[in-house]
């Protein structure tokens, strides 16, 4: 729980950052380093004409789609590789390869092969993320407690019940870790995908402002974006995790 002094410190730290920004902007006195108030004005205007919510909404939808896709495939493959030594040995080389392919390469190839379409954009992001999910979940699947497995088997729980109530709860910390690092990565890759091949979304907007040298708008979108990401973290991820961990002492 946040105590009153820690809230105070956090507020002070935020104010200090703003002050530093203001000071730098005043010293630079340049179009490419706007002061906080100018950014705020652009941000408010962007919300009023609906531009900012529209593009952030589009980006969020892409993040959600590729996140769900990457987690579903990554968790399934991770469990299989963690449980079967043969499968693990066979696909380990592929995994190492995909882990090390630069995100940009995947994106370019997806656009070249499938065209500049929505599916290619989402697939490119998911493909970038899947190997990380597999590696994390595989670690969890390797460390499943055999005691629980034997319990499930001797009481004849069956596959579905064992997976849902015995295996997945043990994997939960690993899946949560993959989800968190996954979101952090996906946010960033989605912007690149939008910049390279979509005509809407935050990434597309940033690219447009870059061409116009409109740093004020870039700052405005960045702040809005960071705020939305934080809100999802606080309002969705943390409560979910707290609920799943309520049995821990």
């Amino acid at each position, binding site marked *: 729980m946040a105590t009153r002094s820690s809230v105070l410190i956090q507020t002070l730290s935020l104010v200090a950052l703003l002050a530093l920004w203001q000071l730098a902007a005043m010293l630079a006195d340049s179009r490419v380093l706007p002061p906080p108030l100018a950014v705020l004005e652009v941000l408010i205007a962007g919300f009023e004409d609906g531009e900012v919510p529209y593009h952030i909404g589009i980006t969020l939808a892409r993040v959600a789609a590729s996140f769900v896709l990457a987690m579903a495939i990554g968790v399934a493959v991770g469990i299989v590789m963690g449980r079967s030594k043969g499968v693990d040995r066979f696909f380990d080389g592929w995994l190492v390869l995909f882990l090390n392919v630069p995100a940009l390469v995947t994106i370019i190839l997806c656009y070249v092969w499938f065209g500049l379409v929505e599916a290619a954009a989402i697939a490119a992001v998911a493909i970038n993320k899947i190997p990380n999910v597999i590696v994390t979940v595989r670690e969890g699947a390797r460390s499943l407690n055999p*005691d*629980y497995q*034997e*319990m499930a*088997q*001797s*009481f*004849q*729980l069956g596959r579905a*019940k064992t997976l849902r*109530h*015995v295996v997945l*709860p043990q994997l939960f910390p690993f899946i949560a870790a993959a989800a968190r690092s996954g979101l952090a990565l996906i946010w960033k890759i989605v912007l690149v995908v939008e910049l390279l091949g979509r005509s809407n979304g935050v990434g597309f907007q940033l690219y447009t402002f870059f061409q116009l040298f409109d740093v004020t708008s870039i700052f405005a979108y960045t702040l809005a974006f960071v705020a939305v990401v934080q809100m999802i973290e606080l309002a969705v991820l943390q409560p979910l995790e707290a609920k*799943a961990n309520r*049995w*821990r*002492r």
Partner: protein
Amino acid sequence: MAPVTQLEIEIREKRYPQVGLAPAHLALRELRMSLRGSEFACVLGPSGCGKTTLLHCIAGLDESFQGRITLPSGRAGPRPVIGYVFQNPRLLPWRTVVENIELVLSPGQTRSGLVDELLAATGLEAFRHAYPGRLSLGLERRVALVRAFAVQPDLLLLDEPFVSLDEPTAQRLRLLLLQIWRDRPTTVIFVTHDLREAIQLADRIVLLSPAPGTVLAEIPVAIARSERREVAVVEGFRNKLIRENPALYREL
């Protein structure tokens, strides 16, 4: 009622292969025993003689042995329902007491009220919604007992279920086990290395040798269970057994 043979065990050999630096290990050899319906058998043997391995083979957790195990046919289907109480309680820490028990039940059993009865009989009602992490080892073991009885097993396997408890707690749980078993008779294999415990509980004691485990002797315990509460009765029987079976003294 004629005693019907319920469980037939014939293990010619159970061997663990060499793994890395651990050498191959012959755990069981020429182990034969059979149980009648609703018989309470204690398998007694020194540590490391293959008692847990035997239970794993019976429960189908380990199928890589040579030999044959004929299980009783189940009341509810072709496969018998097995209740297993492991050496450690093995409750899922993310499920409450009652959720742990209900997980292993069939839908009909969940509604039957049996769980409530068993929780009441074991004094666990106050802990129904507690997570296992908050329970003492003695309480966790009670939950494990309830879980094994709640499936209405055709065969109940218990693997030293009361070790590392203080003696009064262990004693209370033994009496509790006998009481639940009396009310819901089923075939029981109870593994232990404690002769006094075996005398207190069993219809018959099956004595195993050190590894590779084989049956050295089968000793009926022909004393009414009500009399076995007397320490002197148990001690007297124990001394007599040790005189008659020097192997018991050597190995336990």
